[in-house]
Structures are given as C-alpha cells and as structure tokens.
C-alpha cells in the first residue's frame, strides 16, 4: 500500500520548525534565494506552469496559468490575497500548515509576488484560527527582520509587504470574490464574474488569489525544479496533495499523498481502516460540497480526474468516512444545515432553496417523510444549481 510522500510535510515534525532559526537550518528560504538570483519574474511563471501545480483550495485551477492572466503593466497596483479562510467541513490542512510551518507559506508568498510583480499581499485568515494568526504574526515579524520580506529583499530590488488580515466567521469568504468583498470591509457577498480577479479584484485592481497549500508548495518547486515536481502524480494531476482524513477511521489526520495513490491507500493505509472495524458505508472525497462515494470506490485514484470520473469532485482534499451505523439522512441533514446557515443570502435561489431543502430533510429525518419529498428535493436542486452568483448554491 502506498504511504505518504512528504514534500510540504517533510519537516512537519521537526521541533520549532515554525521559527526562523530552525526553518533556516532545514533549507528554509533557499527557494526564494534561488528564485531571485537565477530567474526573471516571467521565467518563474513559466516554471510554475511547467510544474503542473494546480490550486489546492478546491477548484484545482492551474496556478501558473492563473498568474499569467494578470496584466503585466496595468497602471494600477497588483495584489495577492492568500486564502486561509479554510472552512469547508472536513478540511483542516491549511490550519496545520500555518500553525506549524508558517515560514514555508511566507516563502511561497514571496515567490508568487516576485513572479507576478506584486508588492502587497494580504493574508486573509479566518477569524477562528487565533493560534494560526499568532504564528503568522510572529513569522512575518521574523521574516521582515531577516530581510526575506520588506524592502529590497535580499538585495534584489523587489519589495513586498505582507499584511495579516483576520476574518470574523463566514464560510462564504473562502469563495474568492466573497473574500475580496470581505477584505474591502463589507459583508462576504460573492461577485459576478467576469470580470475575474486577475483583471479586476481587490479595490478593482489585478489580484491573484491563491490557497495556503498551493503557495506552500512553491519553495519546493523552485529548489528542486519543475520537472522534479511534475515527476510526481498523474498526467493531469501532478505532485502531491495534503488530504485531510476524518470521520469513522482509526487514525484521522492530515496525510500528504502522491496523486497516483488511491482512496484505499489513504483510508486503510494511512488511516488504519474503519473505526471499530465496522463496514465502510460512504466516503465524501472532497469536503461537504462533494457528492458521496461508496465502498465500491475504494480503489479509485486520489487525482482530480479519477474522482470526477466516479461522479464526485476532489475539491479541498477533505476525505470524510462514514461507517455502516451512520444514518445517511442524518448526515445529509447535518451537511444541509451547514449550507443553509452559511448561505450569504444575496441570491434568492440559494437563500430560499437551502432553507427549503433543510426543512424537507428534517421532516424526512423525523419520520414524517412523504413519497413526493424526493421529487421535491430534486426540483429544488434543479432551481438552485447554476442559478446563483457562486457555487455554494450548486453545492
């Protein structure tokens, strides 16, 4: 059975790896140094494209391509927003990355900003991650003191200011356009796209929005090369991902797997199999928004394409396992309550539809379900999907 392939997690268990001193002792900031010394910004974009790195927040969009959409000389400032609003049920990998390895993230931020020509980065961290915010605050201070952030970084002429920005509790702010609305000081309402953030994002300026794990991968790509990274994973899903395994498994945890691995490698290999040796009933492969899979899908690959082919989505890499004693109506009701609660309320189909779906599921769960309820649920879904500004309704 395949085990973990640790690239981001290589030093995760080193004591105090979150401090500058220990990070430097373990090759910290070598990626940034190499980047500034050996590559022009455009070359870094090509390098990241060649690596095949795809976004690790949920959408899986090719990172280098996203960067290349930003105009070179727009006549306005450009911004990076780091998406650390991790709130998808079943996902807690970004929290671990920022609490334990904040410098790896900062190094990745610096590489991204150098490549795209950005001088101000906002690190949007969800408000509930207080510990994470404190770790990042300290790391930013250390990085500024050592000259890895700030003015004229390592004598390259490149300036970068990283500003920590705490959210205040709203799942929807993980959606990139809602994150921008929130960062601008408003409610987290998503925006219609186009225009896309690369052209008009924060303060109507060109903006890159990248996930914590995506950025944390960059130092390793710079140190070892694009070809090295592209040597891991499948044809279309390169590299490794941090999978967050939770629910009815013996050993829940964050596990970094090469994308050639299977669901079985993760659940039985790393996770130790089903809790209490019960039978597996259902798997959510990519966070609460992802359709459920069953026991017959244990041997599918963990890459984006295999999970899509099975009828679901790889999403945020949050794998939630349910065993035979789980009441599926109860589980789905709980998930539906999440979406109803977190709907921002802007679009009528989502705001009203999530409420009605929750009410119908509650009725079914309490034993008063009617035959027509299943058709009713499907009808509400049909009126919801694709009819609102953002994918929360679709989920």
């Amino acid at each position: 059975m395949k085990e973990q392939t640790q690239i981001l997690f290589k030093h995760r268990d080193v004591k105090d790896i979150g401090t500058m001193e220990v990070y430097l002792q373990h090759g910290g900031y070598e990626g940034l140094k190499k980047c500034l010394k050996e590559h022009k910004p455009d070359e870094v974009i090509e390098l990241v494209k060649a690596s095949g790195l795809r976004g690790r927040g949920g959408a899986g969009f090719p990172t280098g391509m996203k960067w290349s959409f930003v105009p070179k000389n727009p006549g306005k400032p450009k911004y990076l927003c780091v998406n650390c609003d991790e709130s998808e049920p079943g996902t807690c990998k970004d929290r671990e990355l920022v609490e334990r390895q904040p410098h790896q993230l900062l190094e990745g931020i610096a590489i991204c900003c150098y490549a795209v020509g950005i001088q101000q980065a906002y690190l949007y961290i969800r408000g509930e991650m207080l510990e994470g915010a404190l770790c990042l605050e300290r790391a930013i201070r250390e990085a500024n003191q050592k000259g890895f952030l700030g003015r004229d970084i390592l004598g390259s002429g490149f300036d970068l200011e990283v500003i920590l920005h705490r959210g205040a509790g709203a799942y929807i702010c993980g959606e990139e356009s809602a994150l921008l609305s929130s960062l601008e000081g408003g409610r987290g309402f998503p925006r219609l796209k186009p225009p896309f953030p690369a052209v008009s994002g924060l303060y109507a300026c060109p903006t890159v929005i990248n996930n914590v794990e995506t950025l944390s991968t960059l130092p390793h790509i710079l140190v070892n090369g694009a070809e090295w990274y592209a040597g891991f994973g499948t044809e279309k899903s390169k590299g490794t991902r941090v999978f967050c395994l939770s629910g009815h498994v013996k050993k829940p945890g964050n596990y970094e797997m090469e994308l050639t691995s299977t669901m079985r490698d993760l659940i039985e290999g790393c996770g130790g199999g089903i809790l209490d040796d019960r039978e597996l009933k259902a798997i959510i492969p990519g966070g609460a928004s992802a359709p459920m899979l069953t026991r017959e899908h244990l041997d599918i690959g963990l890459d984006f394409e295999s999970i899509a082919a099975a009828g679901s989505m790889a999403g945020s890499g949050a794998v939630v396992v349910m065993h035979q004693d789980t009441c599926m109506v109860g589980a789905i009701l709980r998930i539906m309550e999440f979406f109803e609660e977190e709907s921002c309320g802007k679009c009528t189909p989502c705001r009203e539809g999530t409420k009605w779906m929750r009410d119908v599921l509650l009725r079914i769960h309490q034993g008063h379900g009617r035959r027509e309820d299943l058709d009713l649920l499907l009808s509400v879904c049909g009126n919801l999907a694709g009819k609102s500004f953002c994918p929360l309704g679709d989920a």
Partner: protein
Amino acid sequence: MKTAEMTFKVLSAELVEEIRAIMGRYPKPRSAILGALHRVQETLGWLPAEAQTEVAAIFDVSPAEVESLVTFYYMYHRRPVGRYVLKVCRSISCYLRGSDDLRCHLQRQLGIQRGQTTPDGQFTLLEGECLAGCVHAPILQVNDHFVETCTPEKADALLDELRSGKSQFPPMPEPWKP
C-alpha cells in the same frame, strides 16, 4: 468629521488610536473595519450598539453599515457573553465523532441551552460550523482557543480548570455595561 474632533463615550482614546493605526495598513481604510470590531470586542467583551455607532463614526459610515457586518459575521457578539465562550463544532466530521453528545453533556453540566449564558456570567455555550479541527474531532473552542478531541470527560476537567481561575485560557473581559 475628523476623529480628533469626535467625542467618544465608549471607546477609549487609546483604542481609537489603535483603530486609526489599523486603518493605515490598507489603501482603503474601510478594509480595517473587521479588525477594528475585533479589537473593540476584545476590549468591551461584546459589541453594544453604542460602540457600533462610534466605530461607524470613525469609518464615516452609517451605524446600519456596521450593524450589517456585526449581524453577518459569526464571531461578533451582539449581546453580552460569559467570561468563557465555549463553542462546539457541529459540522459533519465532528458530528460523526460525537459532537452532539458533547454539546448535550455541556448543556446538562452548565444548566443552559445552546446560545445561553450561565447566570453567574461565567460560561456561554454556542455551536459553530466547521472550526477546522476535523482530524481531532470532536472540537471545542474556549474563547477561540482549540480544545481537541474533546470528550465529555475532557470537557468536565476543562470546566473545573476554568472555574478554578488557573486556566491557560485567558477569560474575556467583564462585559461592558452602559
């Protein structure tokens, strides 16, 4: 009206200065408003309407705008809360590992329902949606600090510790009163 010309009855001069400093970090000062509300809540224990009105004045927006944020974001308390806000995660990974049992246990131990505060002003019990602790479910937060793999037994020990006043978790300030 410039901040220097305003009179503040609820926010101290130091806090107003702090808010102005946060505003300076952004090209558009409005971006600082969530951070400002956090600081006000950390100082007053909650966000009374009087404080919201003063924050609105600093940012040159209407009090309704501030209220729209306070009502949208879950972390802001519109009513006074206890010295320790206990938040139990209710999302799917914690649900599968007994979070409902944990929450019911706490309700019994504290003698309150979710959303309520104990009469002695010590504890408020809330539910939260996914708090990003899924691999250590069930998750409890005490004033935004994580208590992982929180069984009912662990929760009992935690309550004893919090009541003793010798806990690692800092209490919220005494809630502001008009």
